[in-house]
């Protein structure tokens, strides 16, 4: 390199060739303004409107900075917006942002990193740079610098804020990298305080608008509150599990002084300062606000919208309710007995309860045989009149079920006699009917279940004696009321441990499915005319885990085939297909890492909602969106609890009710979420919360003009999503089955996918479609070569072979293995293996030419090595050795990071490689039929094809390829005439750019780029 002035020739070329479609990546700034939320989603500014009816809408979304991410947004009192990030800033009128009109944004810059900005007045902007210096700029007169102001302490800053107490009193709070917080006054240019109570760097420091307090957060995981005047430390807040990035003040101080914090641990917390206490009290904790790591940005409006908003590394923007619509009411037994005017026996406890939502009634049965009615509207209790004979039947035992649509409650006694109660209101006594039981005899009921399907009501009784049949009673409701229609007897599975836990009836096929402990399912065909309906099929231990907690039919459109959502308490959920011979096939299986799942359902937006217990709380979780809806402390997994989902048409302002008994007290938690019907408060969709290591797009175009796309992240998760033709990516499943950092993911064909990771993990996944939506399960996994696997499977490739695939896997210890994978029995057979050297292999590809099989590897030593494995392949022989190295050529100085092989015809291939050394190489592989040999020639070599490591190459169209590199420039290279030439180069906001894949929609190529986020281009 010479010392002449120069410009990197490959950093910006024909940028208009690239059209950025969609971007999913870190949300670096958020600002609530009136009924709007402004968000910096990388270099894209988004504006969301919060509508009155708990709905949200995007009103603006444009890339406003060329390269830099938006780290700060401030708004003047008259509606001027200043966005800034990196060295850039830009001024926009807020009115323009919400006007729906096109307008240009002029990006400006200073020569240093901007920490934040503030308006001194409508004519003057203050910019705080990373060297603790304020630029005072006249924004009316063509951005003239008025002054540069500092306090003689130019420490480098990580954070800072400008507080305008009035136009003559401007205070700068500067968070330094290693010298604590510097508080100084602009006009006098004097330092007021240097606060050094924190250890390490300061990531946030702010002064409240009255100039009373200073808050700061840091590396040391604590929050500090100072008195502004004296600089004295008032209190510290401890609780965050890692670094804290953000702090905000509550505006309303009528109920005490409060602070919101958010950080690396993906939690948001609300703190209160109690005068004269040196520890801040933590009032609220919201965990798992985002995926992976980091809440990068947050804001709060506790006055009008009563919302917090958070933005994560996962690209999501979430709204969090501050209005506290979740309410927990608690009733002691003593209170119940007083209110209902009955006396409880010693040790009398609540045995069961149900709620009739439309009447607002709660019906409770106690171990003393009392039935208590609770009118939740008027807060009145009363006891249901029962004769002593009736009451005695429920002495020590009573199980309740209800049919909410008709206000019917059924109570079972220990021997299966059923009391039917038909309610009309709290004040009118219910109609009582007894249904005797002559089947159970002295046997005891263990489970009493209810379901309503169509116009039929079912009650199911289970007793532990397997000789006694299950009893299924069917009812109809008509003008005469609730009428018993039929009693069916079902043969119990002849085994000791079939303890039923849930049931589901499929009306279309008239099947009954009963779930039990030990993850077993029993299926009955209710069309049977036999007196004792035989068990059609029993499926034992269909998955790991203890107990199925919930089953529900989600699809039965095809006759004699149904799909059952099955939930296992230990954190597993499955979609199970049951066919006409009652055989089952698990078509989807995934686990969540949040404690126990007790149940779940699919909501109106086709999203999966799961709920259960996690340590000492109960949670409701949106699995599709990967967000928690609510969480209530309940003392851990309870024996007696109920969750009720309120429907939209019900007049109550409730989304969920969770009833539970804790310490023998009745607790009722009512939860009204916000934006539930709209988007659950997730106003911006995102992706993985950590760097994306690989991306793969399905070869199949679905009938809705989308393609499946899978991404693999370093946090061990995989995403299965849909890529739409406009470049948007709609996440469908988040898969948690890998336990170590992912390396590669690849579609073998439209149904099967491979994924590889550290710890020798290699999985094959199978996709099936239900109504154009994919379900996925782990189909097979490679057994590690030893008990303590420590090698990484860096890459793999496959070619079709007999009834399956030949799969080559490449390892970090330089091993190469070739397997035959039989698609039908999902088994791997090791065919041949070898070792390249001691270098880590980074990529592997396979080629079949006539009857010859070749493997190409690229490794950290920069070599391309080709083996002929034709002689090592055979299904019947013992494992052979890969030894025939036919080509070994040094292409790159250091690691050969990326390779793409493009077939030109059956015997000629173009080979593109990219390296850690910035070089891009076009080579040619030619197969000579006459002597059956393969030759490799370099056609074109570009030494400086990027200013940093080239990480991936994908085919764009016949003549061009897309190349990504960690300099965050994506480039399009043309390779006609066997020469490489850079056609276009443009900047991408996706940092750590590491992978790409390209597909086509209606002949239009679309490229997906992954790294610290995802972006799509055409």
């Amino acid at each position, binding site marked *: 390199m010479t010392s002449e002035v120069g410009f990197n020739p490959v950093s910006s070329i024909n940028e208009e060739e690239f059209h950025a479609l969609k971007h999913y990546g870190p949300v670096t700034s958020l600002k609530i303004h009136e009924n709007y939320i402004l968000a910096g989603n990388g270099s894209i500014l988004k504006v969301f409107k919060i509508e009155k009816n708990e709905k949200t809408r995007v009103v603006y979304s444009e890339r406003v900075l060329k390269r830099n991410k938006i780290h700060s947004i401030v708004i003047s009192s008259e509606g001027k917006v200043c966005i800034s990030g990196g060295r850039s800033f830009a001024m926009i009128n807020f009115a323009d942002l919400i006007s729906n009109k096109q307008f240009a944004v002029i990006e400006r810059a200073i020569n240093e990193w901007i920490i934040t900005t503030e308006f001194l007045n409508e004519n003057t902007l203050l910019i705080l740079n990373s060297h603790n210096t304020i630029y005072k700029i006249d924004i009316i007169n063509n951005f003239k610098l008025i002054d540069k102001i500092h306090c003689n302490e130019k420490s480098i800053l990580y954070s800072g804020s400008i507080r305008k107490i009035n136009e003559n009193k401007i205070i700068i709070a500067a968070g330094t990298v290693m010298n604590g917080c510097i508080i100084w006054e602009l006009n006098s240019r004097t330092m007021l305080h240097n606060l050094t109570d924190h250890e390490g760097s300061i990531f946030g420091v702010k002064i409240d608008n009255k100039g009373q307090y200073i808050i700061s957060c840091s*590396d040391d995981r604590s929050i500090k509150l100072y008195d502004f005047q004296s600089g004295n430390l008032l209190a510290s807040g*401890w609780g965050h599990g890692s670094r804290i990035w953000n702090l905000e003040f509550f505006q309303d101080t009528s109920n005490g002084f409060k602070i919101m914090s958010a950080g690396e641990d993906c939690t948001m917390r609300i703190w209160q300062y109690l005068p004269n206490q040196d520890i801040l009290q933590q009032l609220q904790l919201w965990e798992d606000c985002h995926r992976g790591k980091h809440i990068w940005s947050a804001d709060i409006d506790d006055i009008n919208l009563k919302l917090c908003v958070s933005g994560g*590394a996962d690209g999501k923007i979430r709204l969090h309710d501050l209005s506290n619509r979740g309410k927990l009411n608690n009733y002691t037994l003593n209170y119940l007995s007083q209110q209902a005017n009955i006396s409880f026996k010693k040790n009398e406890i609540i045995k069961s309860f149900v709620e009739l939502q439309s009447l607002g009634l709660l019906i409770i049965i106690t171990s003393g045989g009392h039935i208590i009615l609770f009118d939740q509207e008027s807060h009145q209790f009363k006891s249901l009149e029962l004769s002593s004979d009736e009451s005695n039947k429920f002495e020590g035992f009573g199980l309740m079920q209800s049919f909410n649509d008709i206000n019917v409650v059924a109570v079972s006694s220990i021997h299966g006699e059923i009391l039917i109660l038909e309610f009309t209101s709290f004040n009118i006594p219910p109609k009582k009917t007894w249904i005797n039981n002559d089947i159970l005899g002295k046997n005891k009921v263990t489970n009493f279940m209810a379901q309503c399907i169509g116009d039929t009501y079912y009650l199911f009784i289970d007793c532990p004696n397997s000789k006694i049949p299950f009893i299924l009673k069917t009812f109809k409701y008509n003008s005469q009321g609730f009428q018993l229609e039929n009693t069916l007897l079902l043969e119990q599975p002849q085994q000791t441990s079939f303890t039923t836990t849930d049931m589901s009836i499929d009306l279309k096929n008239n099947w009954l499915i009963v779930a039990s402990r030990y993850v077993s399912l029993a299926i009955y065909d209710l069309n049977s005319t036999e007196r004792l309906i035989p068990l059609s099929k029993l499926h034992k231990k269909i998955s790991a885990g203890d107990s199925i907690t919930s089953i529900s039919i989600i699809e039965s459109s095809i006759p004699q085939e149904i799909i059952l959502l099955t939930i296992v308490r230990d954190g597993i959920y499955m979609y199970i297909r049951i066919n006409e011979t009652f055989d089952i096939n698990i078509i989807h299986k995934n686990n969540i890492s949040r404690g126990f799942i007790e149940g779940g359902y699919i909501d109106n937006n086709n999203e999966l909602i799961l709920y259960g217990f996690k340590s000492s709380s109960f949670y409701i979780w949106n699995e599709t969106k990967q967000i928690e809806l609510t969480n209530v402390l309940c003392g851990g997994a309870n024996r007696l609890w109920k969750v009720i989902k309120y429907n939209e048409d019900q007049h109550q302002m409730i989304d969920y009710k969770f009833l539970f008994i804790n310490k023998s007290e009745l607790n009722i938690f009512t939860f009204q979420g916000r934006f539930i019907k709209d988007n659950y408060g997730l106003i911006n969709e995102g992706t993985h919360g950590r760097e994306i290591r690989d991306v793969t797009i399905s070869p199949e175009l679905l009938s809705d003009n989308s393609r499946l796309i899978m991404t693999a992240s370093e946090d061990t998760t995989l995403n299965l999503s849909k890529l739409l033709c406009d470049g948007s990516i709609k996440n469908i499943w988040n898969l948690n089955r890998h336990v170590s950092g992912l390396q590669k993911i690849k579609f073998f064909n439209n149904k099967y996918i491979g994924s590889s990771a550290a710890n020798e993990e290699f999985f094959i996944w199978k996709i099936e479609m239900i109504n154009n939506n994919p379900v996925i399960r782990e189909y097979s996994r490679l057994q590690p070569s030893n008990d303590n696997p420590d090698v990484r499977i860096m890459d793999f490739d496959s070619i079709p072979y007999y009834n399956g695939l030949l799969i080559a896997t490449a390892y*970090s210890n330089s091993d190469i293995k070739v397997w035959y994978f039989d698609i039908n029995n999902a088994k791997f057979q090791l065919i041949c293996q070898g070792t390249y050297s001691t270098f880590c292999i980074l990529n592997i590809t396979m080629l079949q030419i006539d009857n010859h099989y070749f493997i190409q590897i690229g490794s950290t030593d920069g070599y391309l090595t080709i083996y002929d494995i034709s002689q090592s392949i055979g299904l019947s022989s013992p494992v052979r050795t890969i030894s025939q190295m036919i080509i070994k050529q040094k292409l790159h100085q250091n*690691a050969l990071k990326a390779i793409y092989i493009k077939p030109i015809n059956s015997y000629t291939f173009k080979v593109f490689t990219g390296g850690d050394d910035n070089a891009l190489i076009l080579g040619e592989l030619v197969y000579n039929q006459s002597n059956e040999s393969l030759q490799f020639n370099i056609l074109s070599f570009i030494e400086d094809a990027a*200013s940093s490591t080239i990480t991936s190459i994908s085919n764009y169209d016949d003549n061009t390829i897309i190349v990504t590199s960690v300099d965050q420039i994506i480039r399009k290279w043309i390779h006609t005439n066997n020469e490489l030439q850079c056609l276009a180069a443009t900047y991408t906001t996706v940092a750590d750019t590491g992978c790409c894949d390209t597909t086509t929609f209606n002949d239009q190529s679309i490229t997906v780029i992954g790294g610290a986020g995802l972006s799509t281009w055409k």
Partner: protein
Amino acid sequence: MGKSSKDKRDIYYRRAKEQGWRARSAFKLLQLNEEFQLFKDIKRVVDLCAAPGSWSQVLSRELFENQNHSDAKIVAVDLQPMTPIEGVTTIQADITHPKTLQTILDIFGGEPADFVCSDGAPDVTGLHDLDEYIQAQLILSALQLTTCILKPGGSFVAKIFRGRDIDLLYSQLSYLFERVICAKPRSSRGTSLEAFIVCMGYKPRPGWNPKLELNKSTEEFFEDSNIGKSYNLEHFELPDPEERKIAKFIACGDLQDGDSDATYTLDNDSKIGALDPVQMPTAPPYKKALEMKRRGDLVRR
């Protein structure tokens, strides 16, 4: 990762423990030297951001033991305290402070340095643009001291992250040195963005008198140096394009030295077993939070 799995995952980690280096990064400097003969004819050396001190260890062994320069002077500077190293003067100080420069010059008896190196890196936040900016600031801080102390023709080596704006730095350095090379030692993991800028043949900017002053930011320091940095324009227009260059890339270290990305099988007969690290990690800023957590003082709700 446990001790032994790290041993298997990284051959250099294990070898550093065996050879008594305080950190595996010692091999990076050794391999850079193999390629560029950085240690040839050097007697006055400054090691910036030196803690825990493995580069100073390398320099000490090289200058005193291998080259027998009994009059060699090595100064190691860091904000963190450092365990003493034979023949190395350690200073706990800020590299941007003029006093630090004066202290080093005093130790050198007023003579300029032959070689300045820096293996410093900040704790990353995870925000790539911010982390790259802070790293660039660290390099510029090292560079400003270097321009005040390095002899014409001397060399400067510093750790870089090859992120989005690295070509700006390459361009600026090329004004100050005859040769600017991006070097990647084999001992630096391929999966990391880390590399080293090797700048040889210092050529002071004509007419520029670099002077460390309190309260001068790095940008202000280089303001008159004419090294192609973009400065504030009259109306704060976006400087576009900016001067960017791609430095020549050179991989260094013998291929036989071992691959830091490869998994190695530990010799089962080896009696050494898993080794303890030579230098235990220093106290992190969140030490108190960890202690509170251990004691159960962090109330979850």
